Every structure is written in structure tokens, then in C-alpha cells.
């Protein structure tokens, strides 16, 4: 089991001129978690749908460990698991009936099916609600059932499309821990989310796509590396206007919010005077980073701030 490689993939929906994906090339190695980011309409869901086999007729290739994905799909239909952002199960069925059904359509049966249901229920901690109708579960439990269904066949490729959307912080933390535990040497995990901090904390590789093109791709540390000497400060209070004007002229100050600032510093030696000046102005720094952006900054920088459809 090697890398899931997407090679020069292009796709347009029938009847539409513009390409949703345009020569997308990505390498998603096994063993880690690959974060796929992009604003709404960037092409993420289309890319996931092509990998999942829900869409066809794309130009380019998708290869898993050297084997074309379509061949793998034909010979080993259980190699892929998907956890969509929708609650993709039957609300009128119980959790156990849902697990049995999705296991059955993937070719599981008998003791093996029972064993896998027990295993994924334990993993997602839904053993206590297996007899309850899925539609009656809380949002967090629904997300966990959604995840459990995706894990029934111990898939080699796991596609997680916004798996934590709409849940409370406790359930979200549990889901993130669970997903982290799923990473293993023979498994490719692709994770999409709009929660940048989740992606930054969870993924070891990331790609940002927009308007069907890959804007950046690499390991998390690579893409967050900032060669422009960017100093990011989060202060206890907003800068006084005088100091803000001075920094604006000297360090190309950029304000991300009322108390969050980015400055272009040419030499590390300038950091200490800047921090001292902030303290003197009554703006105690709460967080300082230099030479590295956070994922949200990078995302906004690459995709611009305009609102999307």
C-alpha cells in the first residue's frame, strides 16, 4: 500500500464550460492524514467524489500504489471508506441495522460482520445506542455513527469530508482523537474541513485548492513556513493609533482583528524592541510567532477574502 496519486485530473460537469478541476496533481501518502482545504466551490467535493467513484469521465488519472483506482474498485470494492458531511445513513433504521446494512452491501456477512460491527461501535463509542433509531440520536452520536459506518471494512483509503461539522466541542474533540488514531502505515486518510485549527492540529500534509487548481501542497511545516520574516502578535489590547501608524510605516503592519497583528520584520533582532514597544503601550503580548504562518492566514492569503457562493 503506497500513495494515492492524483495525476493531472480535470473535470467539468456536463453542460458547463468551466472546469471544476483543472490539471490537479496531488500525492497523498499512506501513514498520515492529508488535509484538503479550499473555499466553497473550490472543487474539494468534486475531487472527493471522483476518488470515491461517485463521478466519472474525468481526464487524468487516480492511482493507488501504482494501481489505477478503477481497477482497485472493481477487484476490491471494500478498499475505500467514506464519511460524508451529510448523515449518510437511514434515520428510520437502528444504529445496528444501519451497520448491518452497510456491512452487507460491502460484502460482509456472518461472524465477520458481527465482529466488525462490535469493533466499530466500540471505536466510535456507540455500543450503548445500537438499538436506537439513528434519526433519534444527538448530532454528536450521528457523527460517530457516520464515522463507524465508514470504518466497517477497515478501508485502505478513508475519505473524511467535514466529519466534525455541527457537533459540540466534546464530540468534536472525541472525533478528532478518533481520527488521529486511525492513521496507520497502510492507510491513506484524506480529511476536508473548514475548521483550520482542526486541520493544522490533525494533518501532517495539506493542500489548498481554489477554482479547481492546487495553490499549495506539501507537509504542514513546509506550507506554513514563512520566508518573509512575518511576526504575528496577539495582544491583550488594541494598539494605540500612534504606535499603529509608526509600525504601519516601518513594518508594513497588517491588522487581522482588533488585537491580532502581522508585521514584516527583516531581522530577528528587531523582535525584542517591537515587543517592548507594545508592552510600553499597555498592550501585553499574549501570543508571539515568527517565521511561520498559521493555516488560516495562509488560507486567506492564498484564496483572497472575497465571499464565495
Amino acid at each position, binding site marked *: 500500500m503506497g500513495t494515492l496519486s492524483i495525476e493531472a485530473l480535470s473535470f467539468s*460537469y*456536463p453542460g458547463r464550460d468551466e472546469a471544476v478541476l483543472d490539471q490537479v496533481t496531488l500525492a497523498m501518502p499512506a501513514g498520515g492524514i492529508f488535509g484538503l482545504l479550499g473555499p466553497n466551490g473550490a472543487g474539494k*467535493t*468534486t475531487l472527493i*467524489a471522483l476518488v*470515491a*467513484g*461517485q*463521478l*466519472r*469521465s474525468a481526464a487524468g488519472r487516480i492511482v493507488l500504489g501504482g494501481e489505477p483506482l478503477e481497477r482497485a*474498485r*472493481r477487484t476490491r*470494492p*471494500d478498499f*475505500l471508506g*467514506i464519511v*460524508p*458531511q*451529510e*448523515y*449518510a*445513513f*437511514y*434515520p*428510520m*433504521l437502528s444504529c445496528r*441495522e444501519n451497520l*448491518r*446494512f*452497510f*456491512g*452487507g*452491501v*460491502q*460484502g460482509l*456477512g456472518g461472524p465477520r460482520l458481527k465482529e466488525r460491527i462490535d469493533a466499530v461501535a466500540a471505536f466510535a463509542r456507540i455500543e450503548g445506542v445500537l438499538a436506537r433509531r439513528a434519526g433519534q440520536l444527538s448530532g454528536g452520536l450521528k457523527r460517530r455513527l457516520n464515522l463507524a*459506518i465508514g470504518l466497517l471494512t477497515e478501508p485502505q483509503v478513508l*475519505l473524511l469530508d467535514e466529519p466534525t461539522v455541527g457537533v459540540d466541542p466534546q464530540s468534536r474533540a472525541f472525533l478528532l482523537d478518533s481520527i488521529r488514531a486511525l492513521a496507520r502505515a497502510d492507510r491513506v486518510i484524506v480529511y476536508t474541513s473548514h475548521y483550520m485549527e482542526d486541520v493544522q492540529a490533525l494533518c501532517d500534509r495539506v493542500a489548498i485548492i481554489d477554482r479547481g487548481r492546487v495553490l499549495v501542497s506539501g507537509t504542514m511545516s513546509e506550507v506554513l513556513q514563512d520566508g518573509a520574516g512575518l511576526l504575528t502578535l496577539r495582544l491583550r489590547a488594541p494598539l494605540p493609533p500612534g504606535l499603529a501608524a509608526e509600525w504601519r510605516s516601518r513594518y508594513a503592519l497588517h491588522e487581522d482583528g482588533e488585537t491580532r497583528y502581522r508585521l514584516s520584520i527583516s531581522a530577528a533582532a528587531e523582535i525584542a524592541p517591537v515587543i517592548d514597544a507594545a508592552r510600553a503601550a499597555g498592550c501585553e503580548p499574549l501570543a508571539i510567532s515568527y517565521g511561520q504562518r498559521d493555516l488560516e492566514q495562509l488560507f486567506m492569503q492564498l484564496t483572497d477574502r472575497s465571499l464565495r457562493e
Partner: protein
Amino acid sequence: MRRLLALWKKEWLALARDVHGLAVLFLMPAAFIVIMSLTLSDAFKGDRGPQTEFAVLSPDPTLADRFASSLSGEGFRAVAAPAGETAARESVRNGKPPLALLVPGGFARALAAPPSGTDVPELVLLVDPTLPPMQLLAFQQRALGVALELRVAEMVRRAGGTAGAVPDLKRAATLSVETVGNPGARRPSSVQQNVPAWLIFGMFFVVMPISSLFIVERRDGTLARLVAHGVPFSMLLLGKVGPFFAVNLAQAALMLAAGRVLVPWLGGEALALPARWDLLAAVAACTSFAAIGWGLLVAASARTLEQATVIGGVGNILVAAVGGIMVPRFVMPQAMQTLADFSPMAWALDGFHAVILRQGAAADIAAPCAKLLALAIVLLALALAIHHRRRVLGPAQ
């Protein structure tokens, strides 16, 4: 096979918990049967339809013409007589024409004989069992009236234009009625007429649960998930056929039971069951396949539940109205009757009538069953083609 079994089981469970869908499938047609059978029971005893065709057979062409011209008009129209009594029976059995009057040889001589009071000449009327009783009654009276007219004319002629002995005008002739094909030669009751019609109507309503379940699957991403798991779209459709076929057969059993038990319990007549259960099952099966095919097409083509409700529900009602489910075809104008030939519900109705009312053989249901099966195949192919053309499984893409 394991996949298909899993799909069938899921469909069963989903359907069994869809209370509203089940109510539409089972309670609605049962209610229609009871209500329509009871409310139309009087109408079926005294109804009259426009332009009902009849034929007159007699060895005496002049007498046959006389009967034909006197009986024509006010809703009855004479057509060319079949070659003989056997051909006439076969024609009436097929409902074309629904009435054939057999005037025996020597009928004119018998009319000329002095009235004896008990020994009167006999006419035989062959009747299609689907003919409403009111039309039959009207035709009977007219036929007896023509016989009486002939006898009075003969008497006046013999009396040299003067009044003679006054004959018993009410007993100029007797008329025996024979219902061709019906068990015990009994006339079909309103329940006999209503059960097939509303059963078909109910069976076609599987379009609602099929399409709504399918659209919810597409909307909620379960369909996309199943495709990602390598389940072919054709198998997803097959997964719907098995359970809903069983539902349709259960509907048929329940509707027959309603006609047999519920309607008489409420004061109506009981449904007379056909002798050939195998043919009844064959017609029900073919009707079911057509109904399921229609459901799958709506499921594949409608994008929202609202669309499916409108296309499926309104489509069913239109096809039912055109197909003689709500209004018998014989009361429709000729153009509408021609249009009815294109309604799948009319084909199904022909099949059920052939079995339940006419006690027909396999040959009698071959044509309607073939049409229904062909339609099912076409609808299924269209559903697959629409899916293939879209290649998009959910609104998110």
C-alpha cells in the same frame, strides 16, 4: 446476492416504518373500494351508457334488421352481426359488442300464432359481464318492447284492421339473459366492478414511497455512499423491485379481501372470486412491474420530494382518469376511449376484467400483460439512462 439481500432488507425496514406511505398504499385503495362500491351500487343497477353496441342474429334477415333498427338509438348502436352464435359468444366474451340478441328461427311465426298465455317465443340476449346493469335493463326492456310491437302489428293485420281479442301485451315474449363467462352466469355487482379499478390505482401509488425514499437517499448522501462502496446503480434499482413487488401483491390480497369480507359486512355485495388464481396473480405481477418501473423513473428523474409528489401523484390520477379507473371507459367520448388505450391502468384493468369478470383464459390476458411488461422494461431503461446522463449523485456536487 448478499448485497441485494441487504438492500431488500433495508427497503423492508424503511417501508415498514413509513406509516404514511403504508397508509397511502393500503388504506387509500381499500377506502376507495368500500366507498365507491357502496355509493355506486344503486347507480350500477340503473345506469345507462352512451352508444353501447349490440348485434342481432337471426336466420331471418328482415326480422334481424327490424330488431336492429328498432333497438338503435338512445345510447344503443347496432353493429354487423357475427357469423353465428359461436362467433357471437366469442365476440361478447371480448366485449365487442357487449350485447348480442339471438332471435331464433320461427320467431315471426310464433308471434303470429294466437297468444296462449304461457307458451311464448323466446329471445336470448348474450351479455358482456362488464356491462353496467342499468344498460342491460334498458336493453332488455327495449327488446321486449320490439317483440310486443311485432306481435301487436301481426294481430292487427290478422284482424283485418279491426280490434280482435285483446292479447296479454305484457307477455308477448320472454327474454332470458345469459352473462357470458361470469361464474354462475350472475351479473357482476358494483364491488366486482370496483375492486380491480381501485386495486390498480393503489398499486400504482407505490410511486410515492419508491421515489420519496430514493430522493431522501440521494439528498442525505446515502446513495453516494453506496456508490462509493461499489454498489452499481442497477443493483440499487433492483433492490427496490423485490420489496415493492411484495407490497403490491400484499395490496392485491388485501383489496380482494376487502371486497370479499369488508364490503358485505358493511351491507354491500360480496366479491365473487375468480376460478383462475394463477392468471389473477400474473395480471397483478405485470401490473406491479409496470407500477414499480414508473416509480423508479420518477425516482431517477425528480430532483426533490415536491417534484416526485407532483409527477407521481398527479401522473397517477391523470392516467387513472384516462384509463377508466374513475369513470368507466364506455361512458367516455370516443376520442377519450381511444386515448384510454394508451393508459397502462386501462391495460391492467383489461387484464383484471378478463380474469375476474369474464373468467378468461391465459390468451385473454396475454396482450395486457405483454403491454405492461414492455412498459416496465422501457421505464426501467429510461431510469438508468437518466442516471447515466446526469452522472451526478447528489446536490452537493
